[in-house]
């Protein structure tokens, strides 16, 4: 499951919805891809904006997280992230 075309955006563009979900800045948070084991800060992930914000691993393309914001609530699916470390 890989994106059809490369994303023009990275995790910096998802900083708002991430901050809304976690109540803190998440762009400096470190995490590990559950599919390929690469390590990164969330600012570096590939981001796709649509009805939801989709974060994919820049190396293997796996879906790391899906965030859907509606009426002040954020539905957050961190299906592909491992070892999310907010302490930066």
């Amino acid at each position, binding site marked *: 499951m890989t994106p059809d075309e490369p994303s023009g955006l990275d995790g910096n*563009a998802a900083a708002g919805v991430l901050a809304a979900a976690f109540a803190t800045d998440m762009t400096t948070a470190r995490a590990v891809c559950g599919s390929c084991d690469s390590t990164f800060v969330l600012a570096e992930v590939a981001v796709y*904006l649509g009805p939801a914000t989709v974060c994919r691993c820049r190396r293997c393309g796996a879906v790391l997280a899906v965030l859907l914001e509606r009426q002040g609530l954020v539905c957050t699916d961190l299906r592909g992230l491992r070892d999310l470390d907010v302490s930066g």
Partner: protein
Amino acid sequence: MAGTALRRRLTWQPATVVDLVDETTSVRSIGLEVDDWPGHDAGQHLDVRLTAPDGYQAQRSYSIASPPGSRRVVLTVQVVPDGEVSPYLARSLAVGDRIEVRGPIGGYFVWTPAMTAPLQLVAGGSGIVPLAAMLRQHAATGTRSPVRMLYSARSLADVIYRDELTALAAREDVDVRLALTRAAPPGWTGYGRRVDGPMVEEAVWPATQAPRVYVCGPTSFVETVADLLVDTGHDPGAIRTERFGSSGGTP
């Protein structure tokens, strides 16, 4: 302080358009008055939310162009063809209009004057915007850390903030170099090609100076520059990247 701002609950608030400046044929700066703006750091973002009459909402994140401490929050927006938000912001918005914003946002692509390492800014196209906030704050605070900027644009007409950059480049502690990738005017003495290895060696602080490096532009530009920097010995941990572009195609 941004540290305080980030711990605030992130809420949407109204902003009034107070100023519009056409920077190029496809780029416009939008000056906003935001009540109770908590302040921001150079490089941070603002989320903009637009609501259609039928209730449909679209939101996007934009880099803040104004330096910390400025009275207005200025966004500089490039029209993305077929974009959902940018054509409205850059073409249709009028002084006096109200939009919804939230911010400041982001702690990764941020520079503060407390960072005393030599500062290296590398911009591709509208990637100049957050780097301009850094350069403006650098100029305003008179920090002793020297700064170099390498800015790649298609042509001179596509150079955003051209007059201001020319003025800043006259300062002793500021070095601004332009690379024009498609068309250069007669007698052009800057670079007339895409950023490459020799250009990085010449225009960027060498790795031995341990600069703090910010790279912002389209994805391919950012990846190319980051690779060139690492190839020339720069510490990957000292390179901060931000990718600009379309909303990302099919997710």
